[in-house]
């Protein structure tokens, strides 16, 4: 059993905007690229050109259909990675202390030197956010790019997770949830940021912004309200041209 810190100085994490995510997988591959070269063991691939290719990813995008009763079906793209929970069951279950939550910023990490690859943490995580690397037999997970966000070898503007830096639609935001004025705190307040599976009691740090209500989910508009915008001028070209001439003649300078 490993202890969680009672409090962390910062509470770093992501806000993921489900109203904006188009499901392009840019974050998935950028993450794969960065983390193959950086923190800990590379993210390996098995049978990469074969019949059953698979590999380690720290972030994956799932797509779900929602079928409201009286409205057209919808599709939601749902990127998922470690949520860096305050009450992280993956940490407390770890028999060697390899899984831990950092005191300074709340990032949940795996110390690969201490990881014995038992996989208990992956079982404990209700989100399926951890993946055992099949080559190295160590547990891999999102590090929130701990080797980017403080990295003085990177320009300051690049000190953010690779997935956030690359997201073309700007659906991913990184910041400190302990700071009520931060970009992430503001977004959560304004847009009703939500916990994923709050009932699990894990207190995830990452938050999801729900899709805005679709206008096609509302009943078809009453024609009367719109009628003035589309009131026909005339039923034929002749009537229309007469109207246009009269209108233009009324304009100043005509």
């Amino acid at each position, binding site marked *: 059993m490993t202890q969680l810190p009672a409090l962390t100085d910062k509470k770093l994490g992501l806000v993921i905007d489900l109203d904006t995510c188009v499901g392009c997988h840019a974050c998935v591959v950028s993450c794969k690229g960065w983390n193959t070269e950086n923190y800990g063991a590379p993210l390996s691939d098995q049978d990469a050109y074969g019949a059953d290719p698979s590999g380690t990813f720290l972030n994956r995008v799932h797509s779900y259909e929602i079928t409201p009763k009286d409205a057209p079906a919808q599709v939601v793209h749902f990127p998922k990675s470690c949520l860096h929970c305050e009450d992280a069951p993956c940490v407390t279950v770890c028999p060697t202390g390899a899984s831990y939550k950092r005191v300074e910023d709340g990032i949940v990490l795996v110390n690969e030197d201490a990881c014995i690859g038992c996989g208990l943490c992956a079982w404990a995580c209700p989100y399926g956010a951890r993946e055992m690397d099949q080559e190295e037999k160590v547990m891999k997970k999102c590090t929130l790019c701990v080797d980017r966000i403080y990295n003085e*070898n990177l320009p300051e503007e690049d000190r953010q997770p690779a997935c956030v830096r690359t997201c073309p639609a700007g659906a991913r935001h990184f910041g400190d949830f302990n700071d009520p004025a931060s970009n992430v705190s503001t977004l959560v307040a304004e847009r009703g940021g939500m916990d994923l599976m709050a009932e699990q009691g894990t207190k995830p740090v990452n938050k999801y912004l729900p899709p805005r209500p679709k*206008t096609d989910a509302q009943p078809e508009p009453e024609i009367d309200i719109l009628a003035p915008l589309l009131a026909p001028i005339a039923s034929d070209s002749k009537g229309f041209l007469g109207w*246009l001439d009269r209108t*233009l003649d009324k304009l100043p300078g005509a």
Partner: protein
Amino acid sequence: MAQPVLETSPPVSDEVRKTTCYMCACRCGINVHLKKDADGNNRVAYIEGNRDHPVNKGVLCAKGSAGIMQVTAPSRLKAPLKRVGERGEGKFEEISWDEALDLATEWLAPLRDKAPEKLAFFTGRDQSQSFTSLFAQAYGTPNYAAHGGFCSVNMAAAGIYTMGGAFWEFGQPDWDRTKLFMLFGVAEDHDSNPIKMGLGKLKERGAKVIGVNPIRSGYNAIADEWVGITPGTDGLLILSLVHLLMSAGKIDFDYLANYTNAACLVNSDPDSPDYGLILKDDEGRALVMDRAEKRPRCFDKPDVQPDLTAVWENNGITHKPVFHLMLDRYLDKKYAPEAIADQVGISATRIRAIAAEIARVAFDEAIELDQPWTDFRGNKHDKMIGRPVAFHAMRGISAHSNGFQTCRSLHMLQIILGAVETPGGFRFKPPYPKPATAHPKPHSKVTPGAPLDGPHLGYPQGPGDLALDADGNPIRIDKAFSWENPLSAHGMMHMVIANAHAGDPYKIDTLFMYMANMAWNSSMNTAGTIKMLTDKDENGDYVIPRFIYSDAYSSETVAYADLILPDTTYLERHDCISLLDRPICEADAVADAIRWPVIEPDRNVRGFQSVLCELGARLNLPGFVDGEGNQKYADYADYITNHIRRPGIGPLAGFRNADGTGGGRGEANPDQLDAYIENGGFWMEHVPEEASYYKPWNKGYQEWAVAKGFFDAEQPYLFQLYVEPLRRMQAAAEGVGEIQPPEHLRARLREAMDPLPIWTEPFGEQVSHEDYPLHALTQRPMAMYHSWGSQNAWLRQIHGRNPMYVPTKVWEANGFAEGDWAKVSSPHGSITVPVAHMAALNSETIWTWNAIGKRKGAWALDKDAPEATKGFLLNHLISDLLPPKEDGMRYSNSDPVTGQAAWFDLRVRVEKVSAPTEAQPSFPVLPDLGVGQ
């Protein structure tokens, strides 16, 4: 337990080199991080977006980040190959570059002296067309084009003829100002990062997004409103919106009168030889009625007040403004929502609501910018007025046989709102706008042993510009610019193999292709195309005698070629993303870019363009040899630096002149490529503020454009709601003039070449709806571009198979369950494939991802790879020819105006079948090339 001590500032890489991505056609700027391996060689460690780059501003898509795996892909070719077995057997021997170029020269040199048209050179998804076309022109064959004919030529041509540009490379929505954005059809492939960035901006501002697409995936998933339209009816929906907006007077009369040809006068006397043509002065300039002086005056006179209503009678001939013709057509009740609702699959109430929303935003939420500007007539304006409604569309509405007129309809809708080149609407990107008249016309005059008489591709203005011989037969092998498809501005690559095989209009000797997977996903009728490539004549010779192909990977097509010229990856080569070609500018900036070898190839491959520099010299082609007959350009980098297209204009516009200060115009600079590298791989200059909008008519923009070298004289013009070149073709079909279409095409030309946008039923609808009750489409996954990335170890884990998605109604009617398979049949063929349920789908439409399916053995994938056993192509259901007409004629499955391949006209039926061992049709395994890969 204490926390481990972490190094939070580890070194990132040894070096960052900035170049241009080529994982799709978007062409983002990338930072390539390199690390030295044990031998001191540079290895690509990480790729990220370049923050300074005008296209992507730092972001990068899944494909771009996965580019690293293209370099290490086992499917990469290793050396030039010569076929030693039969075509398709995959038996090759590795040869040297000298041997390869000797062989190519041995084939091509005698051909040039005798019959250069017997070389068909088609360059696929080429981004160096201004160079490859120069080669083809110097060689003298009329048979050259890239892949636009099977891609989105309808969008491009409709845009150029109507307003001097279309979407993507030509222009973009005003993402920062638009308040209502309407997206038609699949758009996830072209301009991919800018659209995602734009959607993000709209979402941030809370602007409304309406998605019109039978399938609610990708961008449509985040649209506020989804319009699940019936495929092929977008044009009808658009014309219904036009009907409602015009009927209510919710159109911009001032804009129409001043900046479009709505006030131009059309000869309306059916007995006149000029019937349907626009009244012009002696110098050929269009005339409009002046509202003050009540007489026709030239459209560009400083004080002219173009009148949309007045009619001009002259010598007994009535001339009506184009606007009259528009009213006559679009006020017609046949475009009323009630009349079309069933056909488009959208309720009349919804259609009215969309029109009302457009009207409200365009006119009640109009934008005014305090930016003075001067128009081309010399009138000064204090403000820029915007109608903040923007649109975007690409292949979805293009790839139908009614696509040209549908794209025209969309451009017309934008124009009547006054939402083109105004704040909040659609904005051109330099060097566009550029009207059709400022583009070349097609050239096709062949002289053995000499260059062609001019550029191959262009924009015909009338029957005299068609590529026809003295007997009226097509001169080009693809029959582009013939009466079958007169405005085929991008050629018709999808017809080359079929026509060459049929010897219609003639036999060829050598097929020479680059980056085009014709033996698989780039052809309609894939199995038929493979057969054409392997077919032999009565003498036992191949019907298409020689096939030279250049590719970087062992694609399906490699196995069918006789000589393979192995290309490099995009990280190992020079390229220029040129203003002369397919630019990457932004609405606020002119820009171009380069690729350069950020790593060296570890094998015997060469950039295709550098190979052409040498082949051109061996063939002694003008422009490829110097005065002494020596090779003029050592390689493509040399060409990029030193080629002069017009005085002061070269492939790259930036850092010209010896001191590198020239932007746009200037002498060649020997250090130009170094200057680009220094600057991050691109060059950019901002459009002046006063030139930001109204570009076609803005004196400030026109002057700047001339200074930058986009054109040599100011060329303000009117948007062509009424397209006269179409009318000239239509008039010929009515019997006017000496150049006449064949009888069997007259009726179809009269309808198709309508000078005002129309909607006609797609040709594909002319099959029994009882036998084929459903539409079938493909969508483009954002994480995979055509077949390019399909061997990519990372991307294939995201898109390694492609089920056929089936709507609820069809799912239930067939009693489908998860894991089931279906036989999908069209009039052309059938496939047996896995199905999956999707509710967010038009109830009459099934679909799958494009080009995930692979042939077994290709791309160095295991023969049991899911791409080959469960993945499939829809191409097997699509014929290159339509079913025979009553007279036995079979027309190409293409748009009758441009020849664009009608991929999306497909109708099918679905039947549940027991699961086969693998997707059908199944092709024999392509053999391991043994050498090379």
